[in-house]
């Protein structure tokens, strides 16, 4: 049951793609088969590797910063009731603005290049991670804390054995969402202002009207993002089921 | 000529392990009769209501309303459910007007009828309020008013006063009797309260444990103009003890199964 539905879905999407290709034609599209082939060619091209590297490194760093900063913001806000109450609407407001609007500011601060990309990814990831972390800590059952006091647990013990396991599922969800958003942020930054990386290649392909490359890159990005998310989701569900 | 007739009706819920909830049972209700069904928990009382109203088809047997076989919910039937069925997005007034507005009646008439129902059910101060602002009992009154205003010829009530305390239940019982006399409708009331059944009904159907069948149909013999004061009479006490004697064994059995 679990594997059948996603497979059917993928199958349907491929069929839909094929139908669109039949309707639109080579002027603006390529078939799924051709695209898969092109992607394979692209991945084995040595000139392509530095671009994947660029995006991967930028994303990894941005994501790492997002996790660390997000937790550093979210956990204390969850623990300190009033601070959390004050901060929550601010965080929610930040979550819903088009962060793209801040890109020029970041470029002005960091200049064009890797640091700016890392910053793009980071700002996209920090907000959801901190919101989820805050809620995770806030919603820890106070009875657990009282139990720990009765059992005279040390602070370290309390944190490792009670707080962390209790908050972990929700924090994991936040990290999963942060992962996806940091990726989107990194990519978006590369599309807007960069000379290297997958996002840049995509824009370059567009200006050159290189349909095959556009499709190959889009396919790569979609499959990667969806695939990792599916894995993280499975992990997420496992953690929540235990809780 | 009966108003409602059930002949050889059973109801089995399908599924991996089918549940034989009701029957086989026969029942005939006369026009304008007040009939109460009392029984052990899970005895299939609500199923009886579903089948009679046309909300669920009988697995075997037939259901007749006004001489015609029931398929789907027939015109002229009103139902008051156990759970709160008021529409939370409408005011009390609009809730009650809901069914009436759909008949295409002119707004002036709708207002008049709804106004009358609101007065009748004692909801006047709350006409513009939303159900979320009312207590459980008041919301049930809204549901009753909503049913009443359509002037149904058969009214089915499933534990309508379930959430209320005893005194309120007695008073609501009086209201129900008043409604019955005003509309002249046939009423089927499902209740787990022996007192309520004994006080309100012309006949009481005592239902067995699942699969629900009638152990006995007891005629109460009350005059039409009765109210809750009959609770103090001697014959009331005899009636309730007779019902309880019948039910006791069934309740024990139901608890053993539940």
């Amino acid at each position, binding site marked *: 049951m679990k594997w059948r*539905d*996603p497979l*059917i*879905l993928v199958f*349907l999407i491929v069929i839909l793609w094929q139908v669109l290709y039949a309707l639109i034609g080579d002027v*603006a*599209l390529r078939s799924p088969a051709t695209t898969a082939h092109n992607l394979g060619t692209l991945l084995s091209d040595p000139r392509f590797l530095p671009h994947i590297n660029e995006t991967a490194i930028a994303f990894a760093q941005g994501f790492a910063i997002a996790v660390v900063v997000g937790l550093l913001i979210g956990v204390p806000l969850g623990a300190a009731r*009033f601070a959390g*109450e*004050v901060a929550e*609407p*601010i965080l929610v*407001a930040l979550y*819903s*603005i*088009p962060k*793209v*609007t801040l890109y*020029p*500011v970041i470029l*002005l*601060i960091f200049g064009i290049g890797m640091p700016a990309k890392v910053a793009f990814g980071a700002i996209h990831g920090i907000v959801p991670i901190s919101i989820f972390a805050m809620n995770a800590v806030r919603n820890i059952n106070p009875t657990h804390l009282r139990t720990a006091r009765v059992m005279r647990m040390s602070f370290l013990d309390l944190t490792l054995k009670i707080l962390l396991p209790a908050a972990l599922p929700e924090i994991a969800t936040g990290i999963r*969402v942060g*992962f*996806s958003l940091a*990726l989107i942020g990194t990519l*978006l930054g590369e*599309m*807007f202002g960069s000379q290297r990386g997958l996002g840049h290649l*995509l*824009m370059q*392909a*567009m200006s050159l009207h290189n349909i095959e490359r*556009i*499709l190959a*890159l*889009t396919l790569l*990005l*979609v499959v990667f*993002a*969806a695939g*990792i998310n*599916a894995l993280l989701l499975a992990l997420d569900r496992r953690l929540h089921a235990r809780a | 000529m009966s108003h409602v007739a059930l002949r050889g009706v059973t109801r089995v819920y399908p599924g991996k392990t089918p549940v034989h909830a009701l029957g086989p049972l026969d029942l005939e209700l006369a026009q304008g009769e007040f009939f109460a069904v009392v029984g052990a928990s899970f005895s299939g009382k609500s199923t009886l209501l579903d089948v009679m109203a046309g*909300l669920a088809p009988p697995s075997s047997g037939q259901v007749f309303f006004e001489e015609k076989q029931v398929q*789907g*919910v027939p015109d002229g039937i*009103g*139902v008051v*459910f*156990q*759970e*709160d*069925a008021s*529409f*939370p*997005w*409408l005011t009390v007034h609009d809730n009650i007007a809901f069914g009436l507005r*759909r008949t295409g009646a002119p707004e002036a008439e709708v207002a008049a009828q709804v106004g009358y129902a609101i007065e009748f059910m004692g909801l006047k101060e709350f006409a513009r309020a939303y*159900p*979320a602002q009312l207590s459980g009992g008041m919301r049930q009154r809204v549901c009753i008013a909503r049913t009443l205003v359509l002037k149904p010829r058969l009214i089915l009530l499933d534990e309508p006063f379930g959430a209320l305390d005893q005194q309120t239940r007695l008073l609501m019982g009086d209201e129900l009797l008043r409604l019955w006399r005003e509309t002249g409708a046939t009423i089927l009331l499902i209740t787990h309260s022996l007192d309520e059944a004994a006080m309100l009904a012309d006949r009481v159907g005592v239902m067995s444990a699942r699969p629900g069948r009638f152990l006995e149909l007891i005629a109460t013999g009350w005059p039409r103009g009765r109210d809750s004061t009959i609770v103090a009479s001697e014959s009331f006490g005899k009636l309730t003890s007779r019902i309880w004697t019948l039910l006791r064994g069934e309740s024990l059995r139901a608890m053993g199964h539940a």
Partner: protein
Amino acid sequence: MRNAFIVRIAIVVVAVGLLELLCRLGVIPSFTMIPPSAMAQSLWSLLASGRFSHDIAATLANVGIAIVAAMLAGVALGTALQGWPAARRTLDPLFATYYAVPMYAFYPLLIVIFGMSDFPQIAIGFLLAVMAVIINTLNGLDRVPAVLLKTARVHGLGFVQEAFHVRLPYAAPYVFTGFKLAVAYSFIGVIGAEFITSSRGIGYEISFAYNNFDNPVMYAMILFILLLVITVNMSLHAWERRLLSRRRRA
């Protein structure tokens, strides 16, 4: 509750004040950022002169179209899927993975297919928004209590009437949550797309100003978008809370 509000305002005021101070003192150089007061001034004069009126109008129109399309399609699809459990189950992985996919990656493809018009931007906004509407519509419809559906049958309502008169009204607050998200996502999608590449719109003008080292104009427009989006989203959030509070027990 009021205390938190006051503290929040204070924090924002302090943050902006700090920024103002750092800019004026030259700690933050003017080619990086101009003081908030200068941003506000620039915005005011731009709005007064009407220089970007047609850009603002274009962006808002595109956002509006994306929202309306997302609401219509989202509610319709959500209602349809609610009545077709098999399809819903098959699409479930899509719901779960949808927002992880970089929707902007489709933008170049859309431009190649449809050309450099407004449509690709609207499409991105629509694609981001529609899923939120579908998910929340489904959530609301799932919660309709069985007793209300029975009541609908007793009143003789057919399938379509039941959907319009009972199920959707019950689900309305949840559909409104979807609407709130649709607005936020439409802004994000359209403006993001305008940034990447476009021929007009607020995002385009910000990008243009950046490339021309025109900080006063750029920051004015950034401020405009931030204020607009925050105001709209907060208003919708407050409205949503009011709608849900009327239903407290439902």
